[in-house]
């Protein structure tokens, strides 16, 4: 798909340089904000990786072999902006250092593979994998579809660029001056190879790498997963089994809460005003307090402050529940529910702040 010099007219090259320039500018601005000082090493190393990946001779179903572009995995890990830059850098080095692809067609090659390819790969992956957990099989399928569509869309755009050449650029005798085939020939000729081989290569490598990352390095897939931070980390780092165990343990503890009724007496230091005044407790308290004598009357501070707040469910016994055991159970459920709601609210607030902090 690397178009060499000579296939496209100067005006087509200029138009595609301009289009690619807009893409590069927008991508650079966006990536600078997201990655800040990490930008240069991250994009550079990823461009080098994409470059090396393009050299892999990939065995494909059916017995053929093909080469991937690497644009899909770049879009999935870095997002479209990072992928546009890293693939453009790789394509530029191929042209300027290895002589693969032209200098005048560098803008066209970057536009087709880096910009169109990245955007198509990213949009497809996000749409197909929407809402799927990081470890979901759907993400592998999404990567494969994204890879296939990205490679073929980039090829289609290149075919259109080829196909418009004889239409606009020919001399007085009707001799095409650049790529000689019209759209009716250029599109099928270009697409057959990409639909049958190059698209499959991109799909296979993208799906294979996503499947590998799901096991080996799932954090890398979190950047473009579309899931919240907690959602991306939970299924990856906390296995589903341990979460289930946690919920079972909480449920069991809630069921065991009525055991508290079996213990006699009052928890030390948790006396209410009535307990401090009650005659039975007046005798019981010193035995658990190293025989310290109780004051003859309840402390004045306790008297003053105890009426400041009245609990809605005093002594874990809601007024409308007659059975103390059921009251304990209901109180436990209510308490756990309150804590969960509270933690969800805090989590939501923190997420909103984090999103607001991002440009």
């Amino acid at each position: 798909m690397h178009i060499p010099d000579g296939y496209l007219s100067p005006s087509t090259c200029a138009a595609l340089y301009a289009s690619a320039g807009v893409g590069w500018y927008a991508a650079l601005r966006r990536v600078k904000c997201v990655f800040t000082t990490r930008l240069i090493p991250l994009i550079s190393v990823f461009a080098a990786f994409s470059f090396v990946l393009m050299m892999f001779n990939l065995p494909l179903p059916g017995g053929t072999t093909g080469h991937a572009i690497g644009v899909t995995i770049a879009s999935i890990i870095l997002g479209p902006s990072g992928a546009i830059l890293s693939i453009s850098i790789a394509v530029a080095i191929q042209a300027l250092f290895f002589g693969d692809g032209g200098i005048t067609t560098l803008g066209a090659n970057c536009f087709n593979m880096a910009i169109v390819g990245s955007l198509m790969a990213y949009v497809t992956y996000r749409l197909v994998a929407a809402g799927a957990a990081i470890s979901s099989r759907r993400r592998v399928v999404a990567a494969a579809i994204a890879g296939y569509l990205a490679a073929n869309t980039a090829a289609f755009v290149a075919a259109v660029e080829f196909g418009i050449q004889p239409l606009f650029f020919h001399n007085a005798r009707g001799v095409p001056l650049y790529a000689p085939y019209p759209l009716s020939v250029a599109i099928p000729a270009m697409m057959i190879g990409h639909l049958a081989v190059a698209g499959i290569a991109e799909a296979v490598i993208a799906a294979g790498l996503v499947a590998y990352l799901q096991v080996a390095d799932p954090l890398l897939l979190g950047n473009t997963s579309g899931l919240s931070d907690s959602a991306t980390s939970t299924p990856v780092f906390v296995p589903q089994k341990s979460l289930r165990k946690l919920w079972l343990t909480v449920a069991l503890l809630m069921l065991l809460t009525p055991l508290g009724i079996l213990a006699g007496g009052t928890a030390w230091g948790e006396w209410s005003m009535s307990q401090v005044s009650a005659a039975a407790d007046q005798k019981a308290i010193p035995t658990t307090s190293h025989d310290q004598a109780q004051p003859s009357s309840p402390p004045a501070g306790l008297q003053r402050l105890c009426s400041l707040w009245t609990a809605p469910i005093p002594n874990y016994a809601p007024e409308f529940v007659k059975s103390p055991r059921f009251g304990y159970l209901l109180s436990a459920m209510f308490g756990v529910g309150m804590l969960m709601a509270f933690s969800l609210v805090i989590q939501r607030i923190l997420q909103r702040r984090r999103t607001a902090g991002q440009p």
Partner: protein
Amino acid sequence: MRRHDTIAATLLSLTHAFGTALVSEQVARRPGLLQAFDPRVRVIGLFALVLAVILSHRISVIVALFVVAVLLAVLSQVNLKSLAIRVWLMVLLFTSVIALPSVFLTPGDPIVTFPAGALHITAQGVTTAVLLITRVETAVTLTTLLVLTTPWMQILKALRAFRIPQEVVMMLAMTHRYIFLLAETAAQMFESRQSRTVGVIAHSAARHMTTRTGGVLLSKSVELSNDVFLAMQSRGFRGDAKTLSEFRMRSLDYIGLLSFLLVGVVAVWVGRA
């Protein structure tokens, strides 16, 4: 090709990159005409000639520019035999495959009609095929001359002089450096796999092995990027790239630049439609 030769094919691709880089470094060190010019002159001059090739509509003018390219190659001590095998033959084969059907498919004045009567070779078809082949051959030769006679770091310095953002130039420099490191790592992984292979690897197993190798390489790349970032930070990097400009244009460079531009302008003028 045997089935497990896909590993060998990948190894060949990876080592080819090293080979290209080595040849480029060797040629760039030789004393020659292009090597004597300031890198900016080489970049602008050869780019101007490529542009002239593309703007020109006459085969004769493009052939003349091809002769100029060959002369430049000879004067810059570029091995013509290597150029013929690596560039001319490859481009001829590739472009001919694309251009040949146009001889029949391009509508125009028939010069040869096959007995069946449905297939014609048209004058316009022949002209467009020859035009495409000569244009691509000449443009690729000129680009190869730039690549062979200019070390990568000098190309980057020239790009800086053209006001390309520092971040982009730095990324190009770092990418070039790490391509070789990652290519070597990948080659070692494939070599180690090949050394442990007995018999024939099934096609699907070879595919899984290649994608897994890609995955490991990806993890290594991310680790490498983090290490490089920390190393850059420890040296005081805060996101701004600062470089020294050591270029000085001499009279020879101005003469070279004017010559390139003159040849380019004349070619465009003569080769206009």
